[in-house]
């Protein structure tokens, strides 16, 4: 069987159902035993500005997008103008017939910057301002233009459903293009229907309308274009249990499974979805007879309150966490420092997005590694975990709580927007291997007859913990430097000892957490060329690695998952053997590279960076690494795919 690798894109204004279309598309494919990976792009806007979904379908597991679009389902003219360049020769564009006369320069939502670029492009190719003209030109690149009379089809649907106002079914343009798409690629329509039913669940009316629209379009495509399009997709028998989910969902499920019962948040993109998803499942099902389980999810007045409420809650013994992104995390910094000083096991899920400041609220970036590590005045231990894919989001969410409690410190779980809002299929989680590790906790019995000191000096820096309210364990917390009881102390010697107690945990962590939990290594141990990265570029790098290896290049990949405290010794051992080290990161300065150099003295030989707000694709990572391996790359390459 040949390997299928099909790239579909749907685009339209926010609020027109791009997301729904992509979800249904993804589900339909996944139900058919195919693997999907999908990335969502949208403006910081509620309705009207351009959004799109870039979806990849394959018979093997897919980990990232590529630069290509094989089929573009355009809800509107802007989608074509923006994405035409990505459609491959032999690929296709689904376009509304009635929009061919659209004047490009009159599209109101196109920003000035883009308009002037477009004007130059049209001039250079001697084209008019008409959309139809642009598409004619595209045909020269062997792109198929599938002109569909959206309005006619909608009218037919309306008639069939007995609806008189067209506006009521305008929202089905998305499934209409979906139907055309599936018709073109000749996929089993039953699976698409199943996906529509699953997506709209308890809304039979909407299901009916959408299935009707989809199938009408499906048939239209079969009748009118089926010969023209070379891409065809067939379902496969599924052998294993698979799930399709986003990073937001993976974190949410990991948290509750990991014992989180108290979550605070202040709304922010792209973190809020996680909290809302937990809230909508707030009542949990306990395995233990007679026990109840539920998560209290609190929307606070700001992020300052979110972190401090969570810390307060953590002192009572509950596993507590908060989720945010850059602007919110900035406000949490003072609270983080308090939690660090007081050895509070609190988890902060930090969704990175384009920054600085409000930045690109709905776009991708990995700019906050150094900030996560150094945030907060003073020096105190913390753990920073960075998940590389959606699967890791789940496992790391659980690990975060285990580490927080075992080592009694704040844990920051770094996620990039590209993971939060993308979805991917993969085999079901291995839930039975998951363990909850709560660390050293004393209860009423344990305390009998002892004088309890919350911050007792110990080997390794970890003092047994007592929850607020426990009989016999009264103690104090303070943001001031304190003695073993938790009372304020300004004594010089005590200060030195307390600093050393706290900071020595970093060594304890180094010792006690296995290296397998801290790094992933892919490829040949003895490869001359090593790619180093963290977070979401993982998928694109692995795909590039596989391809380059199959082409005979000698390459491996070190993914750092525990970015702080970073496992210096292991990284050093791995890297010092390499001839060329290639740092791949989604930020301007190559932050992880800097950290590695700081800690090991080893420099990154090459940087492949990207900071245009869009995630890396396998294509561009592959190209960039190849240039390095061929000795043709500058020391610093900046990638720029994505619109």
């Amino acid at each position, binding site marked *: 069987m040949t390997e299928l690798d099909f790239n579909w894109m749907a685009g339209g204004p926010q609020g027109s159902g791009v997301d729904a279309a992509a979800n249904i598309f993804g589900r339909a494919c996944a139900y058919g035993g195919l693997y999907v990976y999908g990335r969502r792009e949208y403006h910081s806007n509620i309705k009207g500005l351009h959004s799109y979904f870039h979806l990849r379908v394959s018979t093997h597991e897919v980990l990232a997008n590529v630069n290509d679009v094989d089929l573009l389902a355009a809800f509107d003219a802007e989608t074509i103008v923006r994405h035409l360049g990505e459609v491959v020769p032999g690929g296709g564009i689904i376009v509304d017939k009635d929009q061919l006369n659209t004047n490009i320069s009159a599209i109101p939502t196109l920003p000035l910057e883009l308009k002037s670029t477009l004007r130059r492009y049209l001039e250079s190719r001697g084209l008019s301002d008409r959309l139809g003209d642009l598409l004619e030109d595209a045909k020269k690149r062997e792109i198929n233009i599938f002109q569909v009379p959206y309005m006619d089809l909608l009218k037919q649907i309306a008639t069939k459903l007995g609806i008189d106002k067209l506006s009521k079914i305008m929202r089905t343009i998305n499934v209409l293009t979906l139907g055309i798409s599936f018709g073109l690629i000749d996929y089993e329509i039953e699976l698409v229907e199943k996906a529509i039913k699953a997506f709209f669940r308890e809304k039979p009316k909407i299901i009916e309308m959408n299935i009707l629209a989809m199938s009408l379009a499906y048939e239209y495509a079969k009748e009118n274009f089926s010969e023209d399009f070379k891409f065809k997709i067939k379902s496969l028998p*599924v052998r294993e249990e*698979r799930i399709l989910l986003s990073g937001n969902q993976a974190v949410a499920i990991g948290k509750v499974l990991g014992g989180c019962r108290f979550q605070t948040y202040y709304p922010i993109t792209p973190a809020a979805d996680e909290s809302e998803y937990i809230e909508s499942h*707030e009542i949990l099902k306990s395995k233990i007879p007679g026990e109840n389980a539920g998560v*209290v999810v609190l929307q606070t007045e700001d992020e300052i309150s979110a972190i401090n409420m969570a810390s*307060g809650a953590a002192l009572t013994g509950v596993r507590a966490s908060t989720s945010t992104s850059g602007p919110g995390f900035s406000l949490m910094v003072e609270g983080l420092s308090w939690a660090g000083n007081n050895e509070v096991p609190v988890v902060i899920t930090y969704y990175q997005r384009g920054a600085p400041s409000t930045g690109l609220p709905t776009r991708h970036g990995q700019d906050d590694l150094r900030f996560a590590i150094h945030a907060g005045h003073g020096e105190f231990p913390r753990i920073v975990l960075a998940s590389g894919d959606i699967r890791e989001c789940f496992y790391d969410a659980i690990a975060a709580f285990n580490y927080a409690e075992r080592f009694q410190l704040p844990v920051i779980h770094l996620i990039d927007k590209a993971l939060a809002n993308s979805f991917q299929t993969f085999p079901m989680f291995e839930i039975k291997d998951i*363990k*909850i590790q709560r660390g050293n906790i004393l209860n009423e019995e344990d305390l009998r007859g002892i004088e309890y000191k919350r911050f007792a000096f110990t080997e390794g820096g970890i003092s047994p913990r007592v929850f607020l309210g*426990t009989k016999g364990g009264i103690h104090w917390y303070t943001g*001031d430097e304190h003695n073993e009881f938790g009372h304020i102390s300004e004594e010089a010697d005590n200060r030195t000892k307390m600093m050393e107690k706290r900071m020595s945990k970093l060594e304890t962590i180094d010792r006690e957490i296995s290296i397998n939990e801290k790094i992933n290594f892919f490829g040949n141990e003895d490869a001359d060329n090593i790619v180093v990265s963290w977070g979401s570029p993982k998928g694109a790098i692995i795909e590039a690695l596989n391809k380059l290896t199959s082409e005979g290049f000698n390459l491996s990949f070190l993914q750092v998952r525990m970015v702080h405290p970073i496992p210096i010794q292991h990284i050093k051992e791995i890297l010092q053997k390499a001839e060329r080290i290639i740092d791949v990161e989604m930020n301007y300065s190559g932050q992880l590279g800097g950290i590695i150099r700081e800690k090991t003295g080893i420099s990154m030989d090459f940087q492949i960076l990207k900071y245009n707000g869009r995630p890396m694709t396998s294509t561009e990572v592959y190209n960039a690494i190849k240039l390095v391996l061929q000795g043709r790359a500058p020391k610093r390459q900046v990638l720029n795919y994505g619109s």
Partner: protein
Amino acid sequence: MALSWTDFKTDVFIDWCPGCGNYGILTALQMTLAELGLEPHRVVLVSGIGCSGKLPHFVKAYGVHTLHGRVLPFAQGIKIANPSLEVIAIGGDGDGLGIGAGHFVNAGRRNVDITYLIHNNGVYGLTKGQASPTLKLNLKVKSIPKPNLNEGMNPIILAIAAGYTFVARAYAYDTKHLKEILKQAIRHKGLALVDILQPCPTYNDINTKEWYAGLDRIDPKTGKPMSRLYKLEEIDYDPTVHNPDEELDKKIAAIEKAKEWGDKIPIGIFYKNELVPAFHERIAKRMPFYLSSPPAKQIIHDSNNSPAIYIDEFLEELKMT
């Protein structure tokens, strides 16, 4: 065995200035805890930063000395996670009404069942006497170089505007009265504010003990000073909302009283309303087992240390079969 207030003492040196109003507050609080028979380990004192913020270290009960302005988020987090604890929040006027004003106002919307003591001394004590948000316009206490540029705010009115369901004022040196107010505040079901007039002899030379006592106002008849303070209990004033229709009137009455200042300063309970559901009642409506199995008391793993819950409901929607 009955508790005595000395059961709530620690051996930490109390480093407030001689004559500081905080001593009265500390004693009144210790007496309150004892008289309410609260076991020390069930009590959590949560404080902000300031002279006032040090108080928990002087009380033998769980103490959480937090950040400047953040006492309410911590206190609410603790209480919501474990509603069986008796949570008392403590802080300065700068702490609660300056940097903490956002939490002050928004806490009113939740009505969590905690008690909040504001040590109202008109200054930022621990940073050496800058004007606090309650210091009135154009006043110049001895520690500031120029008269205050800002209007002073009224904690009572702000609390009522924000939705607090118990709003009272007391005086640091009238320990007995303060203690009675504290008892009622702690017993109140919902968010209770006690604004405590607290002389700071070191920095505030206007609202001194002598000033409150009226030493500058000798009654020509008795030859005795006429105190500026009077008690709401001693006049015909009923702060309690007995039915929902009374709410607005009671609030307005409280605001009118709260506006009194200068020669006639009321202390006592200004407003009390138990008809508003407390936050735990709101959560329990959604999660019926909340009070018996609050977050802090749930068991999160089984005897094998495996997670204690099923996640089938989540996975249901995500399975691709």
